[in-house]
């Protein structure tokens, strides 16, 4: 499998002495949908800044596909598309000019750039806004415009730094679908997000970064198997006013129609249903509660912080 991104012993110390990255090692495979998670200030944006050459590294190696950034920076940049966390376009330029210009920076002639701009603005449902100044777009539209801008040169690797921050659920879902489609067509995607549900739904592999270090780097599936407890949402046939005491089950009543059940993986659902039936609780449907990754993330980052405090 070709490696899309290879990072070795990456360090970054800012001018004021703040150490943002403490020797990061990371590999992302070609075609992967990779999540980079971490709390605020963990070093995610610094790492992305270095990969996209917006931040100067202190030391270490970064290779994008076959191009080492120290040896062929411009070649490495060609492979990349970036959707940054903050809006970074001229608010007074029309949407289509922003996209066409971005294509031009990659050497794409204007005629071809116009065609690609049309393609991506239509795909991201922004074609109707092509002549509007960027400043009048809504927050969700601005984010989608930045995705169109990052895709116009059709990069092999797309990096998205919290792309769905502050957008409504409908827009978020449509962005997920778009990202899934371009990943299916072969674009490697690296995603940082605070919505852990997003990483759980979209990504195959995951790295958790905290205080400038990678504390976990594995597949999402494997990570989730390390979770010993699982939470289900149960919809009831008959509403209940108060929750009866059931020995051995951690139940929480959301409302009269819904219960939340947290069980250890060693307990079977047959056992659960038996106990619920005995208590005259009938279940009409059952689903996993999303956010399992969130529980793990909090556990891991919490443990890491505790370990650091103990060392200090």
């Amino acid at each position, binding site marked *: 499998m070709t490696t899309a991104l290879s990072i070795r012993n990456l360090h970054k110390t*800012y*001018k004021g002495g703040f150490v943002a990255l403490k020797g990061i090692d990371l590999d992302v495979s070609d075609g992967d949908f990779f999540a980079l998670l971490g709390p605020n200030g963990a070093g995610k944006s610094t790492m992305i*800044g270095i990969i*996209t*050459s*917006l*931040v*100067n590294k202190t030391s270490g190696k970064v290779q994008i596909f076959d191009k080492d950034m120290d040896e062929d920076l*411009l*070649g490495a*940049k*060609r492979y*990349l598309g*970036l959707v*940054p966390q*903050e*809006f*970074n*376009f*001229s*608010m*007074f*330029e029309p949407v289509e*000019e*922003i996209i*066409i*210009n*971005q294509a*031009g*920076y*990659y*050497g*794409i*002639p*204007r005629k071809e750039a116009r065609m690609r701009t049309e393609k991506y603005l239509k795909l991201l449902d922004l074609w109707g806004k092509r002549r509007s100044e960027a400043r009048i777009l809504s927050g969700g539209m601005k984010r989608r415009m930045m995705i169109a*801008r990052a895709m116009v*040169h059709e990069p092999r690797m797309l990096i998205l730094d919290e792309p769905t921050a502050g957008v409504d659920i409908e827009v978020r879902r449509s962005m997920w679908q778009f990202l899934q489609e371009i990943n299916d067509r072969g674009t490697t995607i690296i995603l940082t997000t605070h919505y852990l549900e997003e990483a759980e739904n979209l990504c195959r592999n995951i790295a958790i970064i905290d205080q400038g270090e990678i504390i976990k780097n594995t597949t999402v599936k494997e990570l989730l198997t390390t979770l010993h407890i699982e939470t289900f949402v149960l919809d009831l046939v008959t509403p209940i006013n108060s929750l009866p005491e059931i020995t051995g089950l951690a139940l929480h009543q959301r409302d009269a129609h819904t219960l939340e059940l947290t069980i250890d993986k060693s307990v079977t659902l047959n056992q659960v249903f038996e106990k619920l039936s005995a208590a005259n609780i009938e279940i009409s449907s059952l689903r996993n509660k999303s956010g399992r990754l969130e529980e793990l993330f909090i556990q891991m980052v919490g443990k890491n912080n505790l370990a650091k405090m103990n060392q200090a």
Partner: protein
Amino acid sequence: MNLKDKLTAFYTILIKEVLRFSRIWLQTILPPVITTSLYFVIFGGLIGPRIGEMQGFDYMDFIVPGLIMMAIITNAYANVVSSFYLSKFSRSIEEMLVSPVPNYIILLGYIGGGVARGLTVGIAVTLVSLFFSDLQIHNFWVVISVAILTAMLFSLAGFINGVFAQSFDDISIIPTFVLTPLTYLGGIFYSVTLLSPFWQKVSLINPILYMINAFRYGVLGISDISLWISYAIILTFIAVLFTFSLVMLNKGTGIRS
């Protein structure tokens, strides 16, 4: 990037810059034309006839080349400093920084934008001057080359100002306290031969003096300074400022943390 890609990238930055100042022509093109027209009316039309001739020309004819050059200098500078600073401020500079466009193409693109605005305003001022003066061109190629080279030089100066600027105040300090005095003392309104020998020598430190005199030579055929010395000074400044700008850009001064 091959040569064709680089040319496309350069052309893209140039078009972007031209569209930017064209969109806001009420702020970028019209004000310098109005200001220079007032100079023509007041210094040329009203006060000029009382002054008489300057180096064998009507005072109005004498000041026209200097005023055109002043418009070119200030607008080339203003275009690049404001455009580059605003792109830093809005972080839209990152659009270019993440792309494979080489730094010297970015620099040339901004210079192209500055030259385009400088020459646009210069041509507009020249057209206005035709209402006040019978403009005769002594040497067309000197006029064109000096105008372009001077616009390039001050585009570079504006770029360096933009690189170091941390606030909106920083982009107006140099034009107000350095550029304007040097321009006014660069012989727009007078010949340096009118000054005492001491102040004549002091004036020679002012690089703008060489540009205005070279341009005046192209228009009127007279100059206080040798044309070739003027070219040498302008080209030297361009080479030094271009190298300095490129080093700053490569280091990421003001744009990369």
